[in-house]
């Protein structure tokens, strides 16, 4: 996927030269294998820092709403794969930023790799990671593996139906083919099929390793509240400790705050140091948004999200 990087850099250099944007938010290489670091580039000389590959799994829309520049009306370019762009659209729909403040450098995405899955193929720590087309070459002190990228894609990328940015100012490459899925929510259906006790136990077990670092929340572009409910101290809505009820309360409420807004970008899972698949919570809400309202977040600048609009011809009886 690195093939479009030269185009990204050229676009970025041009934007800076013309003074159309002040900074370009993108990814740079990390200091360890499989790490990508979000970076803000503001000079042509730094353009070489920009990279784009299958490890760029965070969502850069997160850096727009929470960036001090965004409040000053400065124009920002963002290197955006499908989900980043959808979250930029969501920011605009939610009035966090204006369309003319953001220049979207769209990147057609062939998916991000599941770093945990790759790490689990090794007994020791990974020392090298290289990507050549659809092939990944990964090394540790003990062995070297060549794997197909499609075999180690993150789950959200496997089920992604919007790899191309739906809204952009320029594309860095030709769009990639988009898939349609017969059963886009098989994972949710499996959980829904459990009886209530088993389902409860499933979610309790899911979060048992949670350390409440809030990386899932902070990696999420949707979580831009000035003060999160878990950080309120007066009143304090939720206990601060490792009590399972408090841990669960955080996860449930975080998920519900994402209802009808989540793009399933997977940044929350990517950020979690404890390997908790927190998407298990939001996936059900995405399914409901799609099935009840025909809604997928971040596709359209003109439409209002289902949870902030009332329609007299709402098909649901309960609202009438």
């Amino acid at each position: 996927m690195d093939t479009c990087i030269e185009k990204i850099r050229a676009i970025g250099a041009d934007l800076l030269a013309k003074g159309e944007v002040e900074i370009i938010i993108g990814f740079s290489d990390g200091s360890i294998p499989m790490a990508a670091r979000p970076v803000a580039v503001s000079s042509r000389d730094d353009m070489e820092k920009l990279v784009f590959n299958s490890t760029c799994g965070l969502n850069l829309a997160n850096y727009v709403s929470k960036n001090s520049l965004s409040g000053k009306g400065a124009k920002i370019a963002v290197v955006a794969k499908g989900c980043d762009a959808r979250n930029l659209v969501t920011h605009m729909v939610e009035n966090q930023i204006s369309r003319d403040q953001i220049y979207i450098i769209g990147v057609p995405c062939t998916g991000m790799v599941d770093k945990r899955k790759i790490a689990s193929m090794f007994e020791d720590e990974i020392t090298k990671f290289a990507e050549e087309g659809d092939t990944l070459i990964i090394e540790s002190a003990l062995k070297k593996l060549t794997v197909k990228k499609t075999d180690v894609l993150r789950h959200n990328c496997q089920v992604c139906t919007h790899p191309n940015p739906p809204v952009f100012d320029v594309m860095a490459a030709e769009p990639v083919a988009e898939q349609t899925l017969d059963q886009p929510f098989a994972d949710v259906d499996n959980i829904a099929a459990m009886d209530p006790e088993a389902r409860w136990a499933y979610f309790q077990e899911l979060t048992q390793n949670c350390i409440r670092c809030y990386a899932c929340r902070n990696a999420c572009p949707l979580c831009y509240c000035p003060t999160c409910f878990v950080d309120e101290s007066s009143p304090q809505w939720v206990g601060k400790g490792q009590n399972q009820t408090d841990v669960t309360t955080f996860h449930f409420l975080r998920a519900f705050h994402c209802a009808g807004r989540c793009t399933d970008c997977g940044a929350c899972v990517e950020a979690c140091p404890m390997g908790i698949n927190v998407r298990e919570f939001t996936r059900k809400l995405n399914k409901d948004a799609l099935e009840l309202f025909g809604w997928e977040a971040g596709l359209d600048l003109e439409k209002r999200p289902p949870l902030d609009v009332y329609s007299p011809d709402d098909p649901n009886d309960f609202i009438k």
Partner: protein
Amino acid sequence: MNFITIDKNDWAAGIDQLKKTYLVFGPVQDENGCQIKPLAPDVQPEMGAPATVMSPKSVLFPQTEKILTATLDESSKDHHIMKPVDKNDTPRAVLGIRPYDAKAVQLVKLNFDNPDYKDPYWCDAYDITTFVGVGVNRPGPCDFSTSAGCGPFSEQGLDVLMADLDDRYLAKVLTPKGEAWAAACGFDTPADTAESQTLFDILQKEAEKQINTAISTDNLAQKTILDLYEAPFWDDVAFSCINCGTCTFVCPTCWCFDIQDETKHQTAVRFRNWDSCMSPLFTHHASGHNPRESKIHRVRQRFMHKLKYFLDKYDQGIMCVGCGRCVASCPVNIDIREVCNLMNDYQKDK
């Protein structure tokens, strides 16, 4: 100081015997790799496990620890009076930790056990805990312990240092606690001291050779705090930070905590929980003012504390043992090695 040899075929039986008198902690495999946890009766420690995501600091300093309790029942004459909770004073043994984690305990000790303050909870736990480390034969790419005041075979803070020799462990017993641990396991086959030490030296050299990343700390002490505080690089360092608490929670030397009171029905409990300087709430004053209101302030605080304030206050090196956990777990790859070198190299008038 003496050496004993432990046949791996005898290891499990020894640990089972140890469990009769000790509460035993060790690396346990779960969905997220290995964690240091109390071992269930039928569980053996995963001694060859890769570095654990979380450090073993929770053995002495649990993420949530009940410290005091009171009854709210006003018919009871001691209602609303906080009292100590029952403690488990069974001796604890922590098996299979990496040497840098034992060094980290010694750094944390400077805070919890010093002439001015003695934290009763931490000190009591420390007194009954035995640390049994295993030398790291294959340090990973995030390990920079050799330049952070310890190394893959460092003995600091350990009661026993073991070397993994495929079919057996060679154990260097370093303290009386270590001797008691070996006796409790029934490990008593002596090994030749000179030969064993030579083997340890060889393994240590081999391991240290594999660590190809280092920090420089030699200039930090002579820098003035304000120069570093006002250095121009903090904006860049902090840009990618999402202000989660991962780095502080996985760190073996981060010791900050918060006290919380909770009530349920007629019982009040006072807990202490890990806190994190990455959280805005950490410094949020009752007045509403927050002296570290932006993430740049908080990121700077974390690195200044670890690499400058601590060093200035205790003169015991930096508050980092080079385990690399924060590097490995940071969602946005903020690398303390780079920040340390930036600070160490910084010249104000450059």
